[in-house]
């Protein structure tokens, strides 16, 4: 049984009429922006990466090939994998001259806390700071895999497609990343 890419209809519509690409853009703009923000730690850089990613995806859409497989799971979208691979390339090129500033991500996360509960807010901020300091020390793909898993809620199959690794390798990558973070958080307590 063929497993369909969840975005097949949207991609087909955009191929017939490039103006219909807007639907794909609206669906994924927050995800791509979030990924770029975690990678670069800067709003302006994340906006630039997001814009460049979608412009490239629009122009190159005729070259996209759907490769959804049953192992990708329900709701898997190879368009999303393709889009994030573009984003990854754009981030890599952007990072050449930029310095990652994870503190801005901490500020963003702290805003999510309940502003009326000061004690919880302080606790949360400390927890977020510790978690992010640990994540920041991870090697590139380990950090990337955690962000894609937790923030973008991608499956290991999708993450494998984005990172260019096997699913088994991605599971080991995530497991090792979690153990490394656990060691850091445990030693800090």
């Amino acid at each position, binding site marked *: 049984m063929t497993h369909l890419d969840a975005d097949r209809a949207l991609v087909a519509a955009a191929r017939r*009429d*490039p*103006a219909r*690409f*807007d639907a794909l*853009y*609206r669906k994924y703009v*927050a*995800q791509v*922006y*979030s990924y770029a*923000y975690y990678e670069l730690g800067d709003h302006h850089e*994340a906006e*630039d990466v*997001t*814009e*460049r990613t*979608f*412009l*490239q*995806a*629009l*122009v*190159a859409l005729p*070259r996209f090939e759907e490769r959804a497989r049953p192992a990708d799971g329900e709701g898997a979208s190879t368009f999303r994998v*393709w889009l994030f*691979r*573009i984003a*990854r*390339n*754009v981030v890599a*090129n952007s990072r*050449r001259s930029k310095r990652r500033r994870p503190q801005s991500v901490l500020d*963003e*996360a702290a805003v999510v*806390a*309940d502003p009326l*509960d000061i004690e*919880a807010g302080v606790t*949360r901020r400390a*927890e*977020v700071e*510790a*978690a992010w300091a640990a*994540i920041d020390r991870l090697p590139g793909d380990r950090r990337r895999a*955690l962000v894609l*898993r*937790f923030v973008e*809620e991608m499956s*290991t199959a999708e993450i494998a497609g984005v990172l260019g690794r096997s699913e*088994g390798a991605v*599971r*080991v990558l*995530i*497991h090792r990343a*979690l*153990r490394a*973070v656990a060691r850091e*958080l*445990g030693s800090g307590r």
Partner: protein
Amino acid sequence: MTAFGRDSLEVDALRTDRYLEALLAQRDARTAAANAAATGTASTPSGPVDLDPSLRSTIASLDRALVRVHPSFRFEERVARRLAEVADAMRVSEAAGAEGTRVPVPVALPFDPALDPADPALAGPGPVLPGVSRPLLIGALSLAGAAIVAWRFGRPVDPMTRAVRAAHQLAASQRRAGGRPHPVRPHAVRPH
């Protein structure tokens, strides 16, 4: 690492992955519950929990710490407009091309549209993969605009349009000569 060690690691990794699957699958329900309950309590997925306690605690911490961030509405709409402009340029290019063939976006593109921007070879320390910049957009629109203008002026116009154009040209030449443009009388316009 020995084969046994590698297998053990893969088994542990698979166990962790299943735990994460369960955690993420329950996120929506937990989000709703967290809105009504006190925050700060570590949440764990239901079902078999045979994961190392330190890993469970770490996963719970990351589940709280790693939140999605959203761009501003203004940014989102600005990029949407830009995408629409590029999409229009692509449609004009396609219309101007041969029947049934898709003409790629004009060669003003800073990168080769024959390349796949998702190709990992385009990342890394090599030459920067330039994004689509405003000059491209202007180039695309200029080409599209030129095509539209050429199409318009290539069409036969009605007598009234020719009369209006002639009147404007007459007024412009009079201004260049330094005088005030004289009112255009109908008979000054050469009838078709």
